């Protein structure tokens, strides 16, 4: 077996932590394929992601998605240098499908496997180049704000493959979940993000002053970089009920715009504060909620005002996808990290500090046989 290409490794990434079956293929920092099969439509009638429905969809989508990614990239599976897979955090049953599949693929091909952290994968998406040559590589340290239906996290990334620190996260609902719940209050179907966005377009964001969670002085001591959206959602519900009880019409556009403003405001206030507190002059955004136009607009305004560099990866790489997992796997390889051992599992609460799961101990240089890149016994 030839030693692994550590200069420009060809990596296939498998992502199944929520409702997207993502298969990506990268060569070093070059994106070759990014196939995403979403089960979102199946969740719509339930008003949110149903873990069992998501896991069943992953099982059915995996093989077609891998085949499509291979076709899109023009590579052959046997050309791969490694497999990367999301080990966590995410929905346990959904993660397990990807983990089982990734191990089988690695063994069938005789390739090493890298079990990686989904959240760090969102940051890793930024290294990918889509062909344009004018983009400069991400510099470190950076603050990263990751916002989706499953997570709302603020990270301090000193190094993508070796030093990521969780500064804060949501203590209740994820921001995307809050959009879904408020959409329901306003009688809009799932997923709520695009609906709220559309309704808010004609609304006044200052019409109603909804609370900014965990922003009071006493909260700031204990939860300086944490988020809370459950109180905001309740506050919107109360406001709407009050109107309904009084027999008055609900100004849906104003409610949507004011709610969205509250979410965007608190997200960016805390993110920009983290940049200032840590003396980090750059902010990276990631996660599906980055699709929200108002969030991107306010991010540009606030980072401009604070003199920060803002990075927003292409939207196709912000939502959950396999390319970001492949990209993080490739970065681990290029930085000399050993593959994971085969006994890792799915960890629904994997801490963000754990960038790679179950890395194999470094193999001493002088030892015949196994080159350290291949699981023992596979030829």
């Amino acid at each position: 077996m030839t030693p692994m290409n550590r200069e420009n490794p060809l990596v296939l990434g498998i992502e199944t932590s929520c409702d997207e079956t993502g298969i990506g293929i990268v060569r070093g920092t070059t994106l070759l394929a990014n196939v995403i099969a979403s089960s979102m439509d199946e969740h719509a009638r339930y008003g949110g992601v149903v873990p069992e429905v998501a896991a069943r969809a992953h099982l059915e989508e995996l093989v077609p998605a891998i085949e499509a990614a291979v076709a899109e990239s023009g590579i052959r599976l046997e050309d791969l240098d490694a497999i990367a897979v999301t080990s966590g955090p995410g929905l346990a049953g959904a993660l397990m499908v990807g983990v089982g599949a990734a191990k089988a693929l690695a063994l069938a091909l005789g390739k090493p496997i890298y079990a990686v952290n989904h959240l760090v994968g969102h940051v890793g998406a930024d290294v990918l180049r889509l062909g344009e040559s004018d983009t400069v590589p991400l510099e470190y340290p950076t603050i990263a704000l990751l916002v989706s239906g499953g997570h709302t996290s603020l990270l301090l990334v000193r190094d993508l493959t070796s030093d990521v620190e969780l500064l804060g996260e949501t203590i209740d609902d994820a921001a995307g979940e809050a959009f879904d719940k408020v959409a329901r209050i306003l009688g809009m179907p799932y997923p709520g993000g695009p609906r709220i966005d559309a309704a808010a377009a004609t609304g006044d964001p200052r019409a109603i002053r909804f609370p900014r969670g965990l922003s009071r002085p006493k909260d700031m001591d204990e939860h300086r970089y944490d988020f809370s959206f459950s109180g905001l959602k309740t506050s919107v519900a109360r406001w709407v009920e009050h109107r309904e009880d009084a027999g008055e019409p609900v100004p849906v556009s104003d409610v949507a715009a004011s709610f969205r403003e509250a979410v965007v405001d608190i997200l960016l206030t805390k993110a920009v504060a983290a940049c200032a507190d840590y003396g980090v002059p750059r902010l990276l955004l990631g996660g599906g909620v980055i699709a929200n136009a108002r969030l991107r607009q306010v991010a540009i305004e606030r980072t401009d005002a604070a003199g920060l560099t803002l990075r927003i990866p292409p939207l196709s790489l912000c939502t959950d996808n396999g390319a970001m997992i492949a990209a993080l796997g490739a970065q681990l390889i290029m930085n000399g990290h050993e593959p994971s051992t085969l006994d890792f599992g799915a960890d629904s609460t994997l801490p963000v500090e754990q960038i790679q799961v179950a890395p194999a101990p470094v193999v001493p240089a002088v030892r015949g046989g196994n080159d350290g890149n291949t699981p023992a016994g596979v030829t």
Partner: protein
Amino acid sequence: MLLAIDTSAGTSVAVVDHARGVLAEHGVADTMRHAEVVGPLIQQCLAEAGVTVAELSGVVGGMGPGPFTGLRVGIAAARVFALGAARPLVPVVSHDAIAFGHYRRGHTGPLLVVTDARRREVYWSAFSGTDAAGLPERLAVPGLAQPAALLEPDFPFAGMIRLDAATVSAGDLGLLAELTFAAGRPFAANDALYLRSPDAVLPTTRKRVSN
């Protein structure tokens, strides 16, 4: 030679050969660690059998019935291993492998295979015996029932000799696939046998938050 994977109960992996029988078989009974152990078990079986991926002619997947989460791990692994190895996937009903193993060890005649479906329910399959090729003859598609229902007089297979199985042998699964192929019979459908709808509740009307 076939690689066989079943996670409908615990995790079981085997390498089998039509002429030489089971070359290697390893399992872990734990029903909570499928994703962890499936990789090491595949690796161990291939190494112990001294078989390379290129020498395999197919990959057998146990399609259940089995509780949701675990069952999927083995099917995902079997499907994707088959894709990676560029070999056909051979789907086999896990209950058929349980029956096949029991007949192979000397049982004859009718047999009711019962496995745990969790939530105080069981999966069952009824067989009349084996055919001329030694393949179990199934009387009905696998079912899901409360344990007491199998004891009711109106249960069509009441009184049949019953085999309660806590594990599924990937060795038996693989040998059954070899025999099915040799006899020119069709394999099972490539569908996971959950026998239950996803346990999701449709949203009810909005609950009030204010008094």
